[in-house]
């Protein structure tokens, strides 16, 4: 699979960031509820971007 296709995983994380806290976690009033979920979503976004843009390193500037 082409590296750039992984961007769809980013959009999936975005979708889950709307859905999960407003449904599954809406009753979990603890730190490991929506707070942890969104925090992990943020970390996942960083990891995915590191992976997706790896090819940028190989691009020639000339």
């Amino acid at each position, binding site marked *: 699979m082409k590296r*750039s296709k992984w961007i769809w995983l980013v959009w999936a994380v*975005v979708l889950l960031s709307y859905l999960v806290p407003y449904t599954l976690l*809406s009753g979990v009033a603890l730190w490991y509820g*929506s707070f942890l979920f969104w*925090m992990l979503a*943020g970390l996942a*976004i960083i990891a995915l971007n590191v992976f997706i*843009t790896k090819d940028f390193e190989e*691009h020639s*500037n000339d």
Partner: protein
Amino acid sequence: MTESLIWWSIAIYLLIAIGIAIMSRQGPSESMSGYFLGNRQMNGFVSALSYSATTYSAFMMVGLAGLTYAGGVGALGFEIIYFAGVSLVAVFGPKFWAVGKKFGYVTPSEMLGHRYNSKHVAMAVSIASCIFLIPYSAVQLAGVGYLLQGITDGAITFTTGVVLATVIAIFFSYIAGIRSVMWTDSLQAIMMIVASTLVAFLVIQGLGGFGALFDTLATEHPQSLTVPGPGLFSFVTFLGLTIPWFFFSISNPQVSQRLFMPSSLRSMRHMLIGFLVFGFIYTMVSVLWGFSALAAFPSLASADLATPTLLASEFVPPVLGVIVMIGIMAAAVSTIDSIMLTLASMVSRDVYANVKPNVSEKRQLLVGKFVVPVIALMALAFAELQLDLIAVLSVAASSGLVAMVPALIGAFYWKRGTGVGALVSVVGTSAFVLLMYATGNSLLGLPAGVWGIVVASVLFVGVSLATKPHQATTDAFFAAISEELSKKRSTTTDQATKEAAA
């Protein structure tokens, strides 16, 4: 916090910042791309810090903490969705960069105008950006005024704060254009991330640690840990806030222009990843400030007091409080000076040079430099007047700038998109969003933040299908992208050839 401590700290900050700005100079820049884009030679590290400083305005520390205080964890969700939207840079960044290099674009509006072969598109995008971003800058300035006045108990007046921030912003942009702006931005970003993390750490320690903080929240304010929670973040409000912000990295010219600046795609990658790491820390810190204020001072009169109260509390040593206060002022300056430069480049390149054809590059630069303080003074005047209209325009900024998004996406992915389609989409959506805000911001129960992208897309696609695209410029644009992005480093190509041979 004594008045003299504050003035001394401001003086020391200015001394360091001016020193850095002067050191950032690299000979006289006589071209538009030299002054406004740093000759497309910016390195990844400075770009990352400056991108962060430009994006995160003064209201991150005050506004996001306040939003968390009032609405709970939904504020974190809002920021995370914005944050995820910056991934659009991974998709659009290389394309922006490639055509910028190939055709010498200075502004995103110039790019759209060329792509759709329509001067009117370039002009409309530039003017709409001014309409939304000048009031946005004004509100930033007013924020600095209120903050300094509030923290110093009036020793520094509102007007002094506003004028001070304006003068500094003009000064930073004049020393070396975008170069001095980016280097002073970097100073601000580093200072802020260190100081604010330290504050969060000290306050959370003071409240008994992370576990104790969340225990207090869970027992005394359980709703703050869920959405919709205390009620601020109903799903519709959340959608209305997050959709425009999701597109921020391509819809706001002061950040999308940055995609023309990196010296290589490698630098662009460093800019993106650096920003994401910075933004993540900054987001978590701001949210934790809000939660800490809620646990420690649950009955503040207004959520906007969360940050000032926290900074003035016994948890934070006065010197650190002053550093953060100056950091917040610098954050406003770093957002405003970038916006000023971007708008000035758009006005001179896309409005002036299109109205008056055949103007030299030198003349455009002169006009651009003249426009910088004009924009700053307009923002200053708006901030002083404190008109309701300005506040409305500022709030409408993120929703309004979504007007450019379909035309931008279409530029890179839809050959059938036309100049008329782009023009109608930008003008029509801007007008629509303004009308929505003027009439209570609700249509069929949904806010402008949700409608904006729908209206802009329908107008762009609908009008494009009814009109004819300009084939020659479309083909040249797409050809430039594939040509530029297919260049691989020779070493990797060699390696691949060798591997294939083996």
